[in-house]
């Protein structure tokens, strides 16, 4: 790893997208990009692997469905059968329609919450974590591209200037 990084600041997401393509075409490795909002197509332009969060969502959904089936069977059939509206209370199969809304909600609940938690963990966002973006302006209206410098500082700077960066700074890696 090099000890220096170059920070290029952009003020437009379209300019940033073309810049990313140009930088990658010139065979430079982009470490990270900080944006105030998700930019469509950025992951594709950066050449990142497709997200696997959809797969985890499916697994969490299946977990939630299984949990709700077990949970409803336990409380409504096995442990304390209740006569609600004369519906069969000793058979899960015959009483199943009444449980479907709960099964559905549990599936959604598990999938949504666990997916968000997974995303936080994967993005290293947890309580008491300090912000890792190098420039606070990336939380407002600026986009920042971080590129590792490997003895080619002047070459990179001129390339980035050409792509429309409004500010270029070289920093020691920390």
């Amino acid at each position, binding site marked *: 790893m090099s000890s220096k990084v170059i920070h290029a600041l952009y003020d437009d997401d379209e300019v940033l997208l073309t810049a990313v393509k140009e930088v990658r075409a010139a065979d430079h490795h982009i470490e990270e990009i900080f944006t105030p909002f998700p930019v469509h197509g950025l992951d594709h332009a950066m050449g990142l692997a497709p997200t696997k969060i*959809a797969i985890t969502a*499916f697994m969490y959904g299946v977990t939630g469905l299984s949990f709700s089936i077990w949970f409803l069977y336990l409380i409504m059939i096995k442990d304390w059968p209740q006569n609600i509206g*004369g519906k069969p209370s000793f058979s899960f199969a015959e009483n199943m329609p009444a449980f479907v809304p709960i099964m559905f909600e549990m599936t959604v609940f598990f999938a949504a919450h666990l997916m968000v938690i997974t995303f936080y963990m994967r993005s290293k966002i947890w309580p008491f974590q300090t912000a890792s973006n190098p420039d606070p302006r990336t939380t407002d209206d600026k986009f920042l591209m971080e590129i590792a410098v490997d003895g080619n500082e002047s070459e990179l700077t001129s390339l980035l200037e050409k792509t429309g960066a409004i500010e270029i700074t070289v920093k020691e890696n920390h």
Partner: protein
Amino acid sequence: MYTFSSKLKTFSIALVILGALGMAYGFFTAPKTTDEIKEMMQHAESSHEATVAEHATASTHEAVTNEHKAEGEHTTDTHDAHAAEHHLEHMLMQAQNRPWAAMYVAMIFFLLISVCVLVFYAMQRAASAGWSPVLFRVMEGLTAYIVPGSILILLFLIYSSVGHGNHLFAWMYTSIDPTAENYDFAMVTKDWWLNIPGWLIRSVIYVSIWIGFRHLILKNSRAQDEATDTKHFMKSFNYSVLFLALFLLSELFMAFDWLMAIDHHWFSQLYPFYVFSSMLVTAITIIALVTVYLKSRGFLPNVNDSHIHDLGKYMFGFSIFWAYLWFDQFMLQWYANIPEEVVYFMPRLLGEYQPLFIGMVFLNFTFPLLLLMNKTYKNKPWFLGITGLAIIVGHYIDVFVMIAPGTVGNELHFGIPEIGAILFFLGLFIFFTFNALTKAPLHAKGNPFMKESEVYQYH
């Protein structure tokens, strides 16, 4: 410009002829007299000893829905000859209804697909959607069947009501006079709505809304091709918005009149939305399949994977929406357990239609859910084809299960008359659709959103 290949034309005409033969077979083999019914019953009784018990429960249900008051005595042990004769006549009507019901199912199925394609198209216009204009001409072509389909169904409804051609709609043979033999308590409160003149006038209004707005929107869409300003585009937009509002009203009452009135003792408030969700997902599936077909023939160079992907997403989403309404309608009535509501589910959930009623949930919900869940599968023609076929078959079954128990009776019949009717109307649908596709360029070049649609890329 699309050219209707002679192979496909011959295929559609062959389907029409085959279908007509199948339907004719259904009409010729339908029993003519009560004696034939007696013979059939004896035949059935000897081969199905085990199902006798089921027949007994089924006839209790008939006592509720039947238009013949005397029918109720059937369940008691004292059969008098009069009641037995009535029962036979009733069975004869149901057997004679079968080819008519088969025709009605297929007729409604293909007409509503066409109407729902127009609705989907109007939604795209009303939302000023940027992704879909490259598909507009395909959708316009698919709406072509609305005109012949509506005329056919009007003729059918006139023949069924004024012409007394069949007994599909039992409410037409009831009376609100308490002394009459065919007195029906339920009709006392429904007679002001369900009467033949009003019913036919409303039917004409429904189809005129569909045909009229199709004409207006399409005329402006074609005119926009050569236009230099966006006047015609704005007109299509206005007509689309108006059509969506009027369509929803027409569909609401259409579902009540044409479908729900078959079981006229039963009612469900969300039935029209259920019918709509069912036909809308089928319509989107048909759009997707025809687009894939035309693209494979090289006629739609501007359609890319992202457009197909979006259609796949709609198929996926509306399949779930359908399942939600299917279950909603069932669960509320199952939980309330009121006799006049539960009666609808007796033949469907517990009777002979059970495999279809439950099976279609797998075809229409589980299958599309699992197959189309993955992002990368949504634009694979193979996956869309298999899922699309399941959706189309599943929703045909859906319409069949809506109509058949109330008209043909509690015993499930599926054979040559039903398949013949499907082939006949499928042939007509293919013929009119692909014929209409040749009438205008497949690329709606005048649409102001065309550029956006051409470069559309799903990330």
